[in-house]
Every structure is written in C-alpha cells, then in structure tokens.
C-alpha cells in the first residue's frame, strides 16, 4: 500500500483539492448527525484539521479518500455527541433556493416537515446511515468502509431504513 502523496509542490496542495470537493458534504453530514449548527461548524473544522495533520497516514488500500475523511468526521461527531449528551435541533432551517410556485412551495414545505419528523423517529444508527448516504453523498461501498461492515449489510440496512422513513412519512 502506498501513501497518497498529498504533499505536492506546496505542502497543502493535494489536501486543498480534497477539501474543495468534500467540504459541503462533510458539513452536511455532521450537521445532520449533530442537529446543531454551531457544534457542526466546530466538528467540521476539527475533522478537516485532523485529516490535514494525519494526511500522510492515508493508505489507498484501505478505501477511498472520501471514506477516510468521513471516518475522521464521524469519529469527531460521535465524540461531540458523547460530550454533549444531548440532541439539539438545527437553529436555522437550510436555505431554500429553489424558485417554485407558492402552491408548490407550500406542498414542498409540508413534505419536508413530514420527512424531518420521520427522521426524528429514527434511532441514532439509522440517522447516521441516512446522513452518510444522502447528506454525505457516499456510495454504499464507502459507507461500508466508514461503518466497518460489509457492503451488502449496508444495502440491507439502507433499504430497511428508507422504507421505514417512507412509511413514517405516509402515516
């Protein structure tokens, strides 16, 4: 296994590319898990700093760089959860930049609320899975690396969770 040469002509060149590509998704994942914007900012910064300092320890044989980074972010988020031992909600709803007709916007808002309520009914592990898949944008294989389980197991759990969400939304 070779180390990824994240050091190029400038010490942070390779890492900068990784950051540019993954920052929005890492923040989205951490914020989905912690449900607290300020805590999400702290943890996101912490995750990228840890990844920067441990960048030479990455080995391609262990999985993709995204999976490696999200593993670091996940650990930081779980440490924060343990520290706080509470579940806060997002202080601010995400911006809705989609220009829709007022009727569509209202229907969408209702649907969104239903989804958020359904998300709240999931347990921590299910919410973590949903956040990795949809907020983090990871593939099933990458999720398997992060969660240290088989890809088929991830697929099964994901299907079960999203079906449960659908039923909760329709209730």
């Amino acid at each position: 296994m070779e180390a990824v040469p994240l050091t190029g002509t400038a010490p942070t060149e390779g890492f900068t590319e990784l950051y540019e590509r993954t920052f929005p998704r890492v923040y989205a994942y951490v914020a989905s898990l912690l449900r607290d914007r300020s805590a999400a900012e702290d943890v996101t910064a912490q995750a990228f700093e840890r990844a920067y300092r441990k960048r030479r320890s990455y080995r391609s044989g262990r999985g993709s760089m995204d999976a490696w980074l999200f593993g670091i972010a996940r650990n930081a988020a779980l440490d924060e959860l343990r520290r706080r031992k509470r579940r806060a909600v997002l202080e601010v709803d995400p911006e809705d930049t989609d220009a829709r007709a007022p009727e569509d916007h209202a229907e969408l808002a209702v649907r969104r609320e239903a989804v958020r309520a359904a998300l709240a009914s999931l347990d921590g592990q299910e919410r973590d899975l949903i956040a990795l898949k949809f907020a983090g944008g990871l593939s099933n294989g990458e999720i398997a690396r992060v969660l240290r389980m088989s890809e088929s197991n991830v697929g099964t759990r994901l299907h079960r969770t999203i079906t449960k969400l659908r039923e909760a939304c329709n209730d």
Partner: protein
Amino acid sequence: MTDALTAIDEALDTGVAADDDPLTRELQELALMLRDDAPQATPEFRERMDWRVESGFQRPRGSRRAWWQPLLQPAAALAVTGAVVLVVALAAGGRSGSGRDDSGGSSAGPALAADDSGGGGRGAAEAGGGAGEVSKSASGADQSAITVVPPSGGGFEPGRSDRKIERSVALELEMPVDEMSRVADQVTAVTNRYGGFVLNSSLSTGDDGAGGDFDLRIPSNRLRSAVRDISALADVRTQSQTGRDVTREHVTAKDRLRAARAERRSLLRRLEAATTDEEAEAIRRRLDLVAGEINGLRAQLRDLRLRTDYSVVTVTLAAKDGDSGGAGGGGSFDDALGDAGILLVAVAGWIVRALAVALPLGLLALAGWGLGRVARRRRRESALA
C-alpha cells in the same frame, strides 16, 4: 431490494425520480428530498475554513502542542504495565526464594555446622533421617571454623543421643604451584596428627598442570579440628559437607544379631535335648544357617562402625587462577579463549533475560493498545444508542 437501491442511486445521479414502479419512485423522491434538505454551511463559516486550509491550519503560538505531548498517554500506559509486571515478578521471585532449603533437611540431633568468618557464609546442618548436603564457596577465606550445633532432641530417633552419623567433607584448596608440594605434605601430617590415615593420594606438579587429590579417613570425633587445620593450609575454594543418619541400619542390624544369637542359644538347648539322630541333624543344619546369619550381621555392624567412627575427607589441591603451571604462551591463549567464551555466554544470558522481560511487556502493551482501540470505538458507537 437491490433494484430499489439501484433506482435510488440513479435518481441521486440524475436528480430525477422516474422509475416505473410507484413504490420505487416514492423512494427515489424521498432520497432526493433527503439530499436536497441537507444542511448547508454559512458563507462566513466557509470563508473561515478556506483561510484555515490555506494557512495549513496554523495554530497560535501559545496553543501549539509540544511534540512529546501526544506520547504522554501511551507512555503512561506502558509505565503502568511495566510496573504491574515488575511487582508480579518480584512477588514471584520472593516466594520462590523463601522456599529454598539450604540445609537439605531438618536439623535434628548433633550436626556439623560450618561458620565461615572470612566469607560471611551460612551455617549448615546435617539432615536427620536422610542425606543432607550443603555446598558453599569460600573464595579467599583462609580459615573455616567448625562449630557443633547441639542436638535438638528431634529427628529420626526421638530423644536418642547415640545416633550414628556417616559424615563426609570435601575441600578444594588453591595455592601457588610452587607451594603445592608443601601443602600436600601438610595434609598428610594433619591427618596423622588426628589419628586418621590416607586411603589414596595423588599429586602432580609438572608442565601438564598441577593438582592433587587426597582420600582421607579421620576419626569422626576429631573431624572438626582436622578439617579446620586442613582448611588453614591454603585458600579454600569450595567446601561441602554431607551427613547421613545410619542409626536405623545400626539398630536394625544389632536387633537382628541379638535375635540370631538368641535363636542359636535356643537351638543349642534343643540339640542337647534331642532324642533322635534325625532331630539332632535338623537342628545342626538350622544352627549352620543361624551361624552364617550371625557372621553376616557382625560384618555389617563392623562396616557401619567403621563408616561412622571414621569420616571421609576428600581434599583437592588446585593451582591458583592464572598459575596453571603449564607453558605460558599456550596457557594464556587458552585462558583468553575460555574468558571470551564465558563473556559471550554471559552476554547471551543478559540478552535472553532482557528479551524475557521485553517480550511479555511488548505483548501486554500491544494487547492493551488493541483493547483500548476497541473500547474507544465502542464508546463512540454508544453515542448513537
């Protein structure tokens, strides 16, 4: 299930929920909604992060950790592990040391003890009821004072004061080669002085090496003084003493002899009263057997008396180290080779000892590190519970 997951991934890639199956389409729409509803960072936070990445996450001077700080925790864990192993090793070593028996048996009855004033040696007691052996090295000691330990009243024959002890002493004396002949003469003189005799002796002082061996018999009641005087003739390199209680053998032989004699007296009376030739002949045959038994027992008792009345003393004369008496050049080279061999063995021994300590410690540390990782991971996962 696989089709549904594939459809979800397609919808995420294309941004459109277009599956023919209504149920699957519903899942696709939900997936898209979950993705679109994901929280977004504020521009201010993004700007701060961009700056931190560009600066390589530089820390303010005061908040920078020293290079050794991350090593504190594993070092502390290793220190604790090492302390635990050390305590266990010391406790085990102390327990095995206290169980060591120097005397080789209980000290009952009259015993011959050696008190080495020069080397600080320990006293040794003979075993009661069995063989007891004590070896001690008295390098550099000029004299060994022999002291008698008073009978304790216990042991093989409780309260018996006429115990029969078979004693032997082995002495190794070292001296310069040119004094060996003189010392050998002195050993003989001391033996004669105390009423003993030299059973065997040999002495050589030639180029092949100097040395001597003496097999002495010395009256047991004068053993202590004789050994003291012999020890004073040169430096005592080693000294060992053994004692064997043969009282039971002696008593048994005496009892059997007494019984055999009583039987003979009885047979003689019966012979006088015999009325027929056949009866007389039978008694005579029996008398012959008893006579043979009596002779054997008397010989056994004589031998026992000899072994207990006279103690065995073996004296070995050796040239002092570095004075082998042989050819100088060859001897020095041989000595050097021998010393080198001893040194290598000692070094190898220390390496083995160090490995014996380091390997278990290393394995313990590795196990501790592994367990620590597992525990840390479980603690993290418990946050989702």
